[in-house]
């Protein structure tokens, strides 16, 4: 029974870099149709940003909301598929910059777009077991799409972080339950030394995203005896805008319970950060006492699903750091050549 009895979000934060490239700009260049773009535009990290710097920014916001002394945080797990180093942890750099405890457990997690919620699984378990007082679970990516590939329209940059500790009246949201559902499914992969991932094109839908997302959601609802009526918000991974809305249709979830978590239309698919930023956007709006079902999806493949209930501390803590909407409002549009320079796609 994967019930979570004593772990809560004490602080949350997201980071979205200020640069945007329009889907239209990419479609025009590659002679593709501009009428049905998977997202309007995507967020692009600047030339001096990477998974580490974005993790730092998101974590700073989460720590500010939690009001926790950074030296008491003793776990940092970063989930990402765009580690700046093949060998050298991202978490230790994040910990050093933020002034966290040296007595910290840290590792980078890899599970495509589900790596961030793997960090959430780990940190909630460490807190519940009493091994740590506070921990940071981070999802961050500077996702790469091969120029001209379908993924290029959506592969975006962003980060989200949660400070997790024990339940209290003044916390932001208590975890109630967690479940995972995985299988060996080759929908998207990248071999060592390859710069860009490969994907199974149409194979990415039915047997991959939909099967795992719907299985995880059905399992967690079934094991708790919940129906759609018991949940106020549903947060899904968003490889595009269409997929999460299609899940809602299959499960007969009213759109008003899904749309508050949609972020891909404004920033694209931020991979390991994607569903976590969706949860941030919901926490920006939710009221205390509401139940959220939060489900990631990672290729390869699997979903983590969590039930959370918001608490009294949410309304007070919300204003202690920038919201998703405030993050997104810092916006500078760039053209394709600037995008190539920023993301180091020019090799000479």
């Amino acid at each position, binding site marked *: 029974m994967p019930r979570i009895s004593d772990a809560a979000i004490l602080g949350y934060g997201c980071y979205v870099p200020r640069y945007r490239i329009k889907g239209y700009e990419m479609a025009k260049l590659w002679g593709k149709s501009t009428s049905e773009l998977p997202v309007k535009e995507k967020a692009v990290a600047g*030339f001096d940003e990477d998974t*580490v*710097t974005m993790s730092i920014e998101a974590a700073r916001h989460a720590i500010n909301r939690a009001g926790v002394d950074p030296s008491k945080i003793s776990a940092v797990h970063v989930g990402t598929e765009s580690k700046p180093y093949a060998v050298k942890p991202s978490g230790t750099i994040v910990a*050093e910059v933020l002034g966290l405890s040296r007595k910290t457990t840290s590792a980078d997690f890899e599970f495509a777009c589900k790596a961030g919620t793997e960090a959430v699984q780990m940190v909630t378990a460490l807190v519940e077991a009493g091994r740590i007082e506070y921990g940071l679970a981070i999802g961050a990516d500077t996702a790469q799409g091969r120029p001209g590939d379908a993924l290029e329209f959506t592969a975006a940059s962003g980060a989200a972080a949660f400070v997790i500790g024990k339940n209290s009246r003044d916390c932001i949201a208590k975890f109630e339950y967690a479940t995972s559902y995985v299988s060996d499914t080759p929908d998207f992969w990248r071999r060592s030394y390859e710069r860009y991932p490969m994907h199974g094109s149409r194979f990415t839908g039915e047997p991959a995203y939909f099967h795992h997302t719907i299985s995880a959601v059905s399992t967690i609802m079934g094991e708790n005896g919940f129906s759609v009526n018991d949940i106020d918000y549903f947060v899904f991974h968003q490889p595009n805008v269409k997929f999460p809305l299609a899940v809602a249709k299959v499960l007969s979830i009213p759109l008003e319970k899904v749309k508050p978590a949609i972020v891909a239309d404004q920033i694209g698919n931020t991979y390991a950060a994607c569903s976590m930023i969706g949860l941030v956007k919901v926490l920006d709006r939710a009221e205390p006492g509401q139940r959220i079902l939060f489900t990631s999806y990672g290729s390869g493949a699997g979903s983590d699903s969590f039930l959370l209930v918001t608490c009294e501390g949410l309304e007070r803590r919300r204003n202690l750091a920038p919201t998703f909407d405030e993050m997104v409002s810092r916006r500078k549009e760039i053209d394709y050549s600037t995008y190539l320079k920023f993301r180091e796609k020019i090799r000479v």
Partner: protein
Amino acid sequence: MSKPASYWRLRPFVYRLEGSRCVKCGHFHPLVRKVCRRCGSKNLERDRLPATGILRHFTVVSQAQQGMEKNTPFIVAWVEMDDGSKVVAQMTDCEPEDLKPAMKVETVVRKIKVDGESRLIFYGIKFRPSA
């Protein structure tokens, strides 16, 4: 600062703006110092600069030193921190035309450069316009 050891020693200042402040005259020194450079006092304690300040001067660099060639053009700023200390660092998340003297800026940690041979990434403080 292109050798791992020297970069490693600079971490407290370049990551967190930590250094030593003279208890007698208030002067701030990056990193650990035993004697105050301004008044000679030996009474210094560990302190951290504030994360915000005022932009005093800036210049646009288009001919960069080794390891930073791919970053051009970039902006170097002279900032008066809220405690009066002066810090010189790059500006980010802005264009030169966005900048006005006396505007408020805040610190952020970004990639400063990548060592040509070792590919080691040097992270450190930059400034950006305050939100």
